């Protein structure tokens, strides 16, 4: 597998160097592997931090900036960061109003963020609230698994909740809003190909030319089932149906994200979005806002995911509020 890297061991460090060089609006702590805003947020604002394994870019570092995150902790590719990174970020960004940790529901991420929150409150008295995202409908049996995985809603949540924090809402309100956004969204993803972790050097799983994996997570974890390759229209149906079966999206404005897994061209994502939009309209779902592109990726995996958020006027207002990050930018 050909990779645009110097050395599999230094991918993360080299990428952080590139991020800092490319974006003067960001500051990188190379020792702790944390991406910060260049200009610290004002005192009194609730700070938002997130983090996770690398390989999902632009998530999370690409969402650091005005209107979204204050800091992002980067782990090795597909490996959660460690509590000392999150604790350091928590101390640096706290402006006295407390810190919200945004955590995707993966066992390692949850445990490391839990330890960080314990350390931060014991050692520095900083108020920390955590929200764990778990929007992946592909996981059907939540009782006997580690539960639904946190995927696409994380992007929408960081935008909406980031805007609320920017307005000066307090930690309790910001955390409550974050949980409400998570509870109101569902996602489903699929893979046309595997991804290749640089350190492994070979594809994570084998997927024959004529098959696709429905319901994959963002590390190529197995999904619901492996099925014959189908048209974009049929794929859209297989993604949207389980989402609509899980939550009623009628009677409210919806925010829809058609997300690329990293290895599928934008033109194909638009083909898929056209089909998704049609299916939603037919099901009586009003799409108020949409986002099409690569936002929460799985290295070079080909495929896509759909996220639908049941919004309200307040969520739309916060969605439309100005944002200035390397991954999302409008209204500025």
């Amino acid at each position, binding site marked *: 597998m050909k990779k645009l890297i110097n050395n599999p061991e230094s991918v993360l460090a080299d990428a952080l160097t590139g991020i800092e060089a490319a974006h003067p609006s960001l500051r990188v702590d190379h020792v702790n592997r944390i991406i910060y805003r260049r200009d610290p947020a004002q005192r009194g604002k609730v700070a938002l931090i997130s983090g996770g394994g690398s390989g999902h870019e632009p998530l999370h570092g690409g969402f650091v900036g005005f209107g979204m995150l204050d800091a992002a902790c980067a782990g090795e590719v597909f*490996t*959660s960061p*460690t*509590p000392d990174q999150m604790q350091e970020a928590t101390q640096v960004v706290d402006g006295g109003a407390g810190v919200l940790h945004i955590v995707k529901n993966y*066992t*390692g991420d949850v445990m490391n963020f839990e*330890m960080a929150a314990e350390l931060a409150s014991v050692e520095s008295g900083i108020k920390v609230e955590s929200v764990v995202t778990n929007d992946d409908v592909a996981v059907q049996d939540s009782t006997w698994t580690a539960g639904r995985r946190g995927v696409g809603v994380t992007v929408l949540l960081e935008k909406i909740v980031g805007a609320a924090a920017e307005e000066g809402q307090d930690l309790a309100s910001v955390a409550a809003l974050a949980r409400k956004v998570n509870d109101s969204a569902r996602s489903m993803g699929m893979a046309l190909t595997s991804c290749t972790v640089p350190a492994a050097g070979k594809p994570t799983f084998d997927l024959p030319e004529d098959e696709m994996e429905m319901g994959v997570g963002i590390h190529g974890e197995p999904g619901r089932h492996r099925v014959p390759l189908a048209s974009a229209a049929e794929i859209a149906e297989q993604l949207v149906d389980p989402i609509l079966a899980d939550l009623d999206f009628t009677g409210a404005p919806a925010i829809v994200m058609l997300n690329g897994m990293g290895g599928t061209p934008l033109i194909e994502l638009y083909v898929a979005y056209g089909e998704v939009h049609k299916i939603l309209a037919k099901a009586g779902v009003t799409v108020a806002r949409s986002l099409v592109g690569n936002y929460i990726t799985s290295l070079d995996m080909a495929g896509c995911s759909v996220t639908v958020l049941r919004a309200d006027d307040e969520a739309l207002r916060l969605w439309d509020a100005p944002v200035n990050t390397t991954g999302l930018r409008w209204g500025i």
Partner: protein
Amino acid sequence: MATGTVTLDQLVAWLSRFHELVTEQRGYLTELDSAIGDADHGANMDRGMSAVMEKVGATGAGSVDELFKTVGMTLVTSVGGASGPLYGTFFLRMGLAAGPVKELDPPSLGAALRAGLEGVVARGKAETGDKTMFDAMSPALDALDAKISEGSSPGEAAVAAFAAAEDGREATRPLIARKGRASYLGERSIGYLDPGAASTALLFQALNEALAEGTP
């Protein structure tokens, strides 16, 4: 019947032997993890225990709680994933339970290990049969406690603990994983050993060897 104590040197020897074992078995642990996880358990444990031995070698430790606090924090900050917090919490809780002492008598050793296990449960919420490190660690400690309550030496108790940990590891093979990333495989996780139970068996193999060497 010998009821000797476990010295600080023996505890360091335990950690050192655990480091050697995870380094030797790095490929094996990763292979187990490729089947039902994300293929990094060997590399992560090796990296973590290397960091631990570097830290312990550089700073030394004046007491049992200091030693285990260093081990726990080093694992937590160097391993990542789920293994870092789980093994890290295990040693942090052991240190808290042991306190600022220079050696552990058999009941104190059992109590410290038990506190470590309770930390693992608090962190990971695992139960018997979830196909996790708990399935090796819990029977190991039951066996160790049973021997200690009979008045056995730490070395004899560690022999029993190691045997029980190996049995516990083997018993994970037919189980369906209910925790961690392997749980998403559902029935596809049947037939494979749990990598965490395998590294836990190495932890007790190391304890067994360290205490055997030190037993007169």
